[in-house]
């Protein structure tokens, strides 16, 4: 189940990154919101990983090269604008993807139908913050621009077809670009112009090729579980 791993790992890894915000958010309402999104994504990850095997074995006992998540979701949090840029890119993608999966007849239809409601909320949250930061102060505008720019190179990978997902990837890409372009225009920002890929061929994360911070993230995530082989928690 390559597709279950790919979609499950996306949700698992982004959930973990958002969990790192707990106790560090700029305002209490965002402690609640970011934790809420992390929890939704973790719930999705658990369903998806369980379709592929044992959720804890898959989360805690695979090494970096066996993870199939997008490089985008593993990127460190950076400042709040950086996190929001990552949320905007990913939640818009995930909403369009789950919309298509929910409408189809494949194995992900039931999960997607339920999760798309959560994902719509995530996208709405990211859009509102993109507007506030882009069209807020000069500083927030610059930070939002920098976040969007820094993560742009990881967005090409989002539209590499995932084996086992019955999705019109071209339509997904076009819809995504229109939507992001529209939000950024309203936020007085523009679409970044750099390359959509790193020097790696597209699909790096989906093939288990990750960026450097990911291994350290897994070391932290897996350490306790690996220290007690066979224990139940």
């Amino acid at each position, binding site marked *: 189940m390559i597709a279950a791993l790919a979609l499950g790992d996306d949700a698992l890894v982004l959930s973990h990154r958002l969990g*790192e915000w*707990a106790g560090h958010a*700029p*305002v209490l309402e965002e*402690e609640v919101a970011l934790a809420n999104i992390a929890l939704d994504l*973790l719930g999705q990850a658990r369903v998806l990983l369980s379709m592929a095997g044992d*959720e804890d074995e898959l989360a805690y006992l695979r090494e970096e090269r066996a993870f199939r998540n997008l490089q985008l979701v593993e990127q460190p949090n950076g400042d709040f604008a950086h996190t929001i840029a990552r949320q905007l890119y990913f939640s818009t993608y995930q909403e369009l993807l789950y919309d298509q999966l929910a409408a189809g007849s494949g194995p992900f239809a039931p999960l997607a139908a339920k999760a798309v409601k959560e994902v719509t909320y995530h996208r709405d949250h990211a859009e509102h913050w993109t507007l*506030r930061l882009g*069209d807020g102060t000069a500083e927030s505008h610059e930070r939002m621009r920098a976040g969007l720019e820094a993560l742009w190179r990881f967005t090409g990978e989002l539209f590499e077809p995932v084996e086992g997902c019955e999705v019109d990837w071209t339509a997904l890409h076009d819809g995504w670009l229109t939507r992001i372009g529209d939000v950024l225009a309203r936020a007085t920002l523009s679409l970044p112009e750099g390359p959509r890929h790193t020097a790696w061929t597209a699909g790096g994360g989906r093939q288990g090729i990750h960026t450097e911070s990911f291994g350290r993230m897994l070391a932290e995530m897996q350490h306790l579980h690996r220290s007690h082989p066979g224990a*139940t928690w």
Partner: protein
Amino acid sequence: MTTMAADAADTAAYEAVFDAALAAEERIEPRDWMPEEYRASLVRQIAQHAHSEIIGMQPEANWITRAPSLRRKAILIAKVQDEAGHGLYLYSAAETLGTSREELLDKLHAGRQKYSSIFNYPTLTWADVGAIGWLVDGAAITNQVPLCRCSYGPYARAMVRICKEESFHQRQGFELLLALSQGTEEQHAMAQDAVDRWWWPSLMMFGPPDDESAHSAQSMAWKIKRHSNDELRQRFVDICVPQAEALGLTLPDPDLRWNETREHYDFGPIDWDEFRQVLRGNGPCNEQRLSQRRRAHEEGAWVREAAAAYAAKHGEARS
């Protein structure tokens, strides 16, 4: 009558209405007249309570990224999220008394308002997450259930909602410790070690002994508080002993034993020197907790400014 005499007569009349409401177990509401000392005392207590929820996120959030199973991780994230929500309820309740969240946070950051001493202890192992749920939330519930009948309406109503969620967290903490206690030898030892470290600080959560408690008598007269510190502490010990037995764990107190005459557990002396040191800022994590809170606030300033600027431009309600 002169104006001043008229004011004094009014105040006496208001005070009589206030006292009658307290006597009749009626709730005081934000628009009701209340003595300034009652107002100030409530602001102090509710703010301290709100701050405790916010600072209390840190020791547990410390383990979110290392939780050993996805189920436990989900439970922990949900719990820390609830705590932020409790902080929000409580700041709202405090605001009905004429202060603002910003003002209260400024006082917290300046060290002019306190939070519960318990959160100045570090979470060193995964089992600490369970010990916090079982003991710290357990002590909080023992303290807070009577506050559901507190004379100030907004505070009492906030406590009803909070206590429901806290009871749930407490059961989850107990269940976490039970899984460890019944797990491998290493897991059992981890659970015992956590209980050994959290037991006494949990007993300190009820505050100083009755004869040293500065605010107790007045709070009880105002029906903010319903039971004394020592009474609640005893109630907590009595609840915990059988629970520890059910867990298969021991409590680190050689003097702990059932007293037939009192029909309560006797327990050993609390290290009040340690308690006072922690309150004074010299606990293991005081510096770290307050620094992290200040840093989150300072580093988030540009985000709050952006939201305000955007709201001003677009007529959106301020977030």
